[in-house]
């Protein structure tokens, strides 16, 4: 695994490969994060892409005080809030649900750490439980659909999911992030 702060050093020196790495590492999570604030998937993709383009254009000037993760989350949050402001003045409406700005950045980072750990733990699930769990949680299949697809009873699926949850909980607790 790459250290993302080393990656930023590479970017500063004009290494496009590092830039590519950073992008694939953070694109999805930043989109989800921004989308949570602005409630718009399409616009959030634009915002995050713009953020990365700016990062590359200003790579030599950007100062990262803490680590690159907190830099990325902070700048996406700013960009998202700016977007909301400009949208608001455009429509002059208050229909958007105001985002709880008091939510701390540290919390966001903490949350991101938990998710990364969770992702790792999901990959460690025993093969059979993993299949059921992934179909269920990630493919969004209904329990009935999974039961037909894998030819197992709904009760078995529920048992598998419960087993997976127990596994994930202890796995995450071992990583001491929860």
């Amino acid at each position: 695994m790459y250290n993302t702060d080393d990656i930023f050093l590479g970017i500063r020196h004009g290494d496009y490969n590092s830039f590519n790495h950073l992008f694939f590492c953070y694109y999805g999570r930043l989109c989800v994060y921004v989308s949570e604030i602005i409630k718009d998937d399409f616009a959030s993709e634009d915002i995050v892409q713009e953020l990365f383009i700016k990062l590359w254009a200003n790579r030599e000037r950007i100062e990262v005080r803490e680590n690159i993760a907190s830099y990325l989350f902070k700048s996406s949050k700013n960009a998202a809030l700016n977007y909301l402001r400009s949208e608001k003045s455009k429509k002059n409406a208050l229909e958007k649900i105001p985002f709880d700005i008091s939510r701390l950045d540290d919390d966001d980072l903490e949350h991101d750490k938990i998710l990364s750990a969770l992702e790792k733990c999901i990959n460690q699930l025993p093969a059979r439980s993993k299949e059921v769990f992934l179909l269920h949680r990630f493919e969004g299949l209904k329990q009935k659909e999974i039961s037909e697809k894998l030819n197992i009873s709904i009760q078995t699926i529920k048992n598998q999911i419960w087993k997976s949850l127990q596994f994930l909980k202890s796995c995450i607790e071992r990583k001491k992030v929860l």
Partner: protein
Amino acid sequence: MKKLGIKLVDHFYTGSELREEPELEEWYKSSDENKLIYENYRRIWLGCIELAQRKKFNAEIAWTNINKKISVQTTTKRTIHNAVYVVIGMAASLLITLGLAFYTNMFFIKNETLQLSTSLGSRSSIVLPDGTSVTLNAGTHLEYSYDNLNKIRDVKFDGEGYFEVAKNRNPFIVHTPNGLKLKVLGTKFSLTAYSKDKTIKTTLVEGKVELNTPDNKKLLLIPGQMATYNDATKELQYSNGQLYQNLGWLDNKLYLDNTSLQEVCTILERWYNVKIIIEKDELSNKIHYTGVLREETIVDVLDALCKLSEIRYQVNGKAIIIK
């Protein structure tokens, strides 16, 4: 707990309120510890939903977008520089204009170069600003620049890579460490050109490639053909072999065709970032292998090699000694 657990799964799955599930609620309220357990399960459940949401956003497509925009930005900057030069030039005397033209060439038309490297033991896929995608094998260095004056996409390359060159009327030229040039328009090809190796190999999958040696020998490849350039003898020729052999590394397969132990070790050193020492020097060119290896770890590969020949190995941190 199992019965309660299933209830918990149902409760999360249906998104019901806790008070609608009397058994669960009773358990939840019975101790602070249970409350914490419940909270943790809920966070995992929600976390999984959030992880699934990330998959909605297609990073591949987004990356292509970003690439386009970045290359457009670089070109616009250059045009502005040139425009500034024209305006100033018109206002000033011919002499100054000439002076400035010289300056412009020196500092502004110098194009942005992208440098990409993979370290030993790692691989990477990237998209260049022109839309060309390249898969770089371990220990490869690539420098891309666009020569605006001659309208050439210029690549300096040391290592192994698989190129899918984006179609574009501007030629895409790859320079290998020992002066061999590959000129392409839009094609798919693989290139093995490590500066430490004596030979360069290229395999064309699609399109057309023209090879030029430093002493002006030419060779044209058609799809399915392979060429080898020998740096020592300066010989450039078509070579025999199967297409998949040179592309095997893309899906982790190592094709050996009468390959010496020495050559196998050089490849393994790059792929796995290890140092391999062959204790008895005479072994390196005495043992040859033919076949396909598709193994996950270096230990698997070494085990396979041991079965194929009379060698033994010993792992010592990142160093491997072959006996």
